[in-house]
């Protein structure tokens, strides 16, 4: 079985640990992290037309890629500890849309996602307990979805 793991900014390793609890030894994990390009737009918008370009696009790209690769490495290490084969993939775009597109492309059998990246600051039950990315994936994924929640 190919399981696509939606690796967020901080808790990718935790997601893999949860998946590993029920994954079979022959299952393969596709670890996918999407750099959210949304926040770049307002920063680029600051340049305006009476201001010179800030010229730090490459620096921001590098920061995004380094942070994404770091979280993928952590997730891959966790998969290795669980004895599961894994591949890593770094994408850019709107996370929820890219995850769904990659799931379709890879013909994943299952898509695993955390309900929230920051569960501590949100209610554990009810609609606010599921973040936007997880909500979108639940609604639009072309495959089965497993949602990991924080226990109340």
């Amino acid at each position, binding site marked *: 079985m190919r399981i696509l793991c939606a690796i967020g900014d901080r808790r990718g390793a935790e997601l893999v640990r949860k998946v590993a609890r029920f994954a079979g030894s022959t299952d393969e994990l596709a670890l996918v992290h999407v750099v959210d390009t949304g926040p770049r737009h307002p920063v680029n918008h600051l*340049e305006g*037309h*009476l201001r010179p370009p*800030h010229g730090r696009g490459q620096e921001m790209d590098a920061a995004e890629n380094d942070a994404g690769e770091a979280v993928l490495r952590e997730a891959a290490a966790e998969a290795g500890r669980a004895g599961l084969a894994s591949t890593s993939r770094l994408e850019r775009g709107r996370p929820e849309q890219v995850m769904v597109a990659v799931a379709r492309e890879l013909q994943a059998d299952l898509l695993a996602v955390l309900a929230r990246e920051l569960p501590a*600051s949100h209610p554990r039950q009810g609609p606010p307990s599921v973040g936007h990315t997880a909500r979108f994936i639940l609604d639009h994924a072309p495959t089965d979805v497993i949602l990991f929640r924080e226990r109340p």
Partner: protein
Amino acid sequence: MLRPLLGGLIFASALVSIMVRPYRVSEAVSAAAGAALMLAFGFVGIPDAAGLLVGQWNTFGFFLGLMLISAVAEEAGVFEVLGYTAARWGRGNAARLYAAVFAVGTVITVFLSNDATALILTPVVYALVTRLRLNVLPFVFACTFIADTASMVLPVSNPINILMLHSVGGSLGGFLRYLLLPAAAAVALNAVVFLLLFRRDLAQDYRLEDLPPPRVEDPRYLATVSILLGVIAACYVAASITRAPLSVVALGGALALLAAALWRRRLHARSLARKISWSLFLFVGAMFILVRGVENLGFTAEAGRLLATAAGGNALAAVILVTVGTALGANLINNVPMALVMVSTLGALPASTPAVSSLPYAAMFGADLGPNLTTVGSLATMLWLLILRRRGLEVSTLQYVRLGVTFVPLLLLAGSVLIWLRL
């Protein structure tokens, strides 16, 4: 009758073109076209225009010096070091880091101007926060807002202050008397409101080891630049007190920094030239001519009469009208033309107008804070749409509208009252 109509049409068309940017025409070109028409139709005489531009040498010199100083400071790594220092101050707590970013943004804005914070610090903080795997949006919001709210602390904190202060013949004493308290209140309110607003996103820890130390290629150069920046800051204050031209400090400071860059073989002329907004000089110069045109036609005097009538002899009403009117205008057209229009309008007010001595400073407050309304209107629209997208059901449209409509006007009103209290 036709001439005032034609002059008004030229002015309005230039402003609309600046706002809308048809066919991606730059603001500077739109303003220059409008100014050329004002000259062509004789609304402004060429000797008058030449005298006007030459008379603003302090403003132009200050703009150039300021941009050079920011460019050299950036190249030396000052902003990266300040960003890393903020991360160390945070001691692994995102809320503390947020407060530290506010503090760093305030210091940079006060001494290097709002553009340095908005344009240079924001991407530095973006990269830093991304590496720390924190939610980047609150930090981008912090940088963009503090760039404006802290730009009223000193005259040098915003080029608009210099432009207006020079035009009205104001002083550091008057500036601090009327604006120091509103500026401090604006900064404090901004920090507190945002810390509360983003408390959920900031309820995180980070590991400083995820952030590589800033790459300082030449520590001696950085140290020299840092010392020179301190000297420049002190000279700004001294020049403001003695009413010496600030452009002399800015250009002198820039020359000293360039000499240091030359000494350490770190002077890259092309790279430096790219950091200067040359179109800004054309824009500001053209706006001076455009506003002189409407002034010669009597429009700004009429606006002054309308303002005096609307204030109805009430000092607080006059201050609020000027503050809010300038902020709205800065939001709609651009704070440079709005500032110039207000300078001309206020210059036409009779001396008996209530609170007349404070009104130029009220206009500065509105012009400095006004772009935050634009921020709320356009940039923050994007930011808030992203936040809405992330939070799904939590942040309703009503909350977004409520924040956008109440926060900045609240700052404007609070500042107006504080200015009025200083009368």
